């Protein structure tokens, strides 16, 4: 059965054949490889430290964003809008580095849909003619509080996004109809333009909700969740960590963020499409993966990385992993901005070639995580973790 699958799986999967063959020849009874329990514990503690540092930074940057948003809405000005945008870009950077902690039912996963859902159907917030959408439709959405925004989020499907970074991004930049730069919403949208008061209420409420949601994640990794995560059997906690990394790499970044945009050449499939910050989102996501693999959070944490843990079991694989995660960061850094222009043209266009190289690098990285799961004998996700 497995052999057959490999025959369908194309050359990209051949690298896995060896791991599979080893797995299959082992049968059900062979003892797992030796995993240094102490080193595993040290890695998991480092992992939790990186999460704490990452969410701590994301929260404090989100608070700074909320503060500059409040100041801007109270006294709308061109400078105030620029300051709010700068705060958003900073906040995005620290959040992107935490995405390595998604995809296994951890603290972020219970609020992620309110925090970082994309793509945003901007018509759900404001139609092109400005007459419908949450901002204008006072009859249907009388209140624009954090609670009300949370209730309307994803109400009509997975792109009817009313909360989180990308909704705020739309409120700060507006539609991007500009080939060479981002959207250029005027501060007047918060001053004299129709619905300016409600738009301001919306922006403040969305920023406040973001802070509120990140606070719960930050608190979880400082306290209760950190403790329960570290109290799990090491193998289980490792399985979660590796699953998160592999899903971000092979599913989210390679699949949803690069493949779809590359295949469709459509700006509507661009991650941060209003601010033209997609290249930075990608780079910092990749850096977040590298952080966990190298056991560091720049300037705050220096501990045992995943590569060091793997080294004790499979030296060559550890070297491969270390090389490949850095290669992803490097490959993504060569994607020219703005991303919505880089996806255009024929496949020989420099932008598309850079994206294709990044996709190849991510494919290799995702395969590494599969090999790591196999080398560490991880049994996949443990029993169901229910959302409350």
């Amino acid at each position, binding site marked *: 059965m497995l052999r057959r699958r490999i025959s369908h799986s194309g050359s990209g999967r051949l690298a896995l054949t060896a791991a599979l063959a080893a797995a299959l020849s082992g049968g059900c*009874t062979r003892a797992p490889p030796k995993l240094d329990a102490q080193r595993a514990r040290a890695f998991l503690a480092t992992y939790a430290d990186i999460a704490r540092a990452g969410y701590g930074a994301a929260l404090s940057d989100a608070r700074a964003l909320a503060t500059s948003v409040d100041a801007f809405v109270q006294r709308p000005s061109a400078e105030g809008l620029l300051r709010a945008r700068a705060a958003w870009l900073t906040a995005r950077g620290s959040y992107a580095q935490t995405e390595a902690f998604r995809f296994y039912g951890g603290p972020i996963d219970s609020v992620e849909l309110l925090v970082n859902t994309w793509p945003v159907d901007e018509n759900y917030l404001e139609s092109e003619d400005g007459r419908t959408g949450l901002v204008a439709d006072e009859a249907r959405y009388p209140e624009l509080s954090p609670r009300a925004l949370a209730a309307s989020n994803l109400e009509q499907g997975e792109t*009817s996004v009313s909360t989180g970074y990308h909704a705020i991004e739309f409120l700060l930049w507006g539609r991007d109809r500009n080939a060479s730069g981002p959207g250029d919403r005027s501060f007047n949208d918060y001053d004299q333009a129709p619905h300016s008061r409600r738009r301001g209420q919306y922006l403040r409420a969305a920023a406040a909700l973001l802070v509120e949601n990140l606070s719960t994640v930050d608190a979880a990794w400082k306290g209760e969740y950190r403790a329960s995560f570290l109290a799990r059997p090491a193998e289980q906690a490792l399985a979660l960590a590796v699953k998160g990394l592999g899903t971000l790499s092979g599913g989210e970044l390679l*699949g949803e963020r690069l493949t779809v945009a590359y295949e469709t050449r459509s700006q509507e499939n661009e991650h941060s499409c209003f601010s033209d910050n997609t290249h930075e989102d990608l780079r910092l996501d990749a850096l977040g993966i590298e952080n966990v693999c190298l056991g560091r959070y720049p300037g705050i944490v220096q501990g045992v990385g995943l590569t060091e843990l793997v080294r004790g079991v499979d030296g060559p694989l550890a070297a491969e992993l270390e090389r490949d995660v850095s290669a992803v960061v490097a490959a993504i850094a060569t994607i020219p901005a703005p991303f919505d222009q880089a996806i255009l043209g024929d496949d020989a266009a420099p932008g598309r070639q850079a994206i294709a190289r990044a996709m190849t690098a991510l494919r290799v990285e995702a395969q590494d995580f599969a090999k790591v799961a196999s080398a560490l004998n991880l049994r996949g996700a443990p029993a169901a973790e229910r959302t409350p």
Partner: protein
Amino acid sequence: MSPCALAGLAALGLLATGCRCSNSSGTAAAGTATVVDSTRDAFSLPAPSLTEQHRARFFVGNSLFNRSWVVAPASLESRDGLGPLFNARSCSGCHFKDGRSRPPESGQPLRTVVLRVSIPGRGPHGAPLPDPNYGDQIQGSATAGVPAEGDVIVTYARVRGAFADGQPFELLKPEYRIERPAYGAPPGDLLTSPRVAPALIGLGLLEAVPEGTVRQREDPDDANHDGISGRANLVWDIRRSTPSLGRFGWKAEQPTVEQQSASAFLADLGVTSALFTDEGCTLAQQLCKEQPNGGSPELSDELLRDVALYARTLAVPARRGGDERTVREGEALFARAACSECHTPTLRTGAFRAVPELEEQEIHPYTDLLLHDLGEGLADGRPTFGADGREWRTAPLWGIGLLRTVNEHTRLLHDGRARDPSEAILWHDGEARNAREAFSRMTRDERGALLAFLDSL
């Protein structure tokens, strides 16, 4: 390393789990199309066995599935063409997280559940005969300038009963009325059939089960006298212009995932495709006819292919806790009560040219894909091709235990009236009467075990 370690790779969405060590029935619900994931994303992952090329198309299909469609004409040409009449703006509006929709509270209008309608008689090939004014579905939304057809309001009556051991229960029996019908009073003999949007996992695998395998299980005259007489629904395959085995939809009215998807694009979103080229405005709906469209068809063949590929290749999550004693007891009770006569635990896929990665897999969908009379309580009285008004296709049960996680509800059956699996069982009648009575006669512990088994799927 044991093959169970492969589950770790499956968890990454890169490889399927081949784990067969821990218990007899195994955790691999769908062969190499199984994923180990019990998070909110459990229904949203690609089959790990996909080729790189199919994986790329999967993600493109996924983005299309999630996207909101807009009114034509618009700058976003690839997804304009919403309506004029529609129920939802995106596939994900009802199949949220690729999962199942739920009905509203009593007295509220349907939003993510649709009401199919028709008048007595048969259309071409045995399809239901559309109502001359409302067509074959009530669409509660419309683009600017076009009257929406009306709101379908559901109300529930409470039905009380008791298990054999005296434990009481209460069921909800729905009734529907169309409020503010915009195109005249519906006829008194209007036939209606409410439908929730089901979860999309494993659809390609069900399409890949050989027709012979399905038909071999038919027993239309109940020749073996077990009270169960499964029948195949023969429906019209538009692409092939021939009658074909119905596999999808609550009455097995669609032969392929592609046709099911295209029909949902038209009926639910108002988006035309190569398979359904007409917007479906009725003679009474002149304003509907006059609206600009988003191209002919609005959904290109390429995008239809991507979305069908996507729907065909959503992986099935692995079972959880299949080793536990209670679950194993429940599994035995499920078989002893003959639930498994129709909710067939194991099938095998055959050749499948659309997605060769899904070929030759042992799968555990808990369906026979056949029609069964489930009695008067569940009947919609609306014949559809070969399915009569009391017949429904056996619903697959895989993934049922993750519904709470993915969609935050446990509403079951075609109209979502059952609030949990126990209520769903209690609604079974007709061919399933013996099974339901067996459930009623079980002790509390036995019922708990049976439900624990369902929860592990």
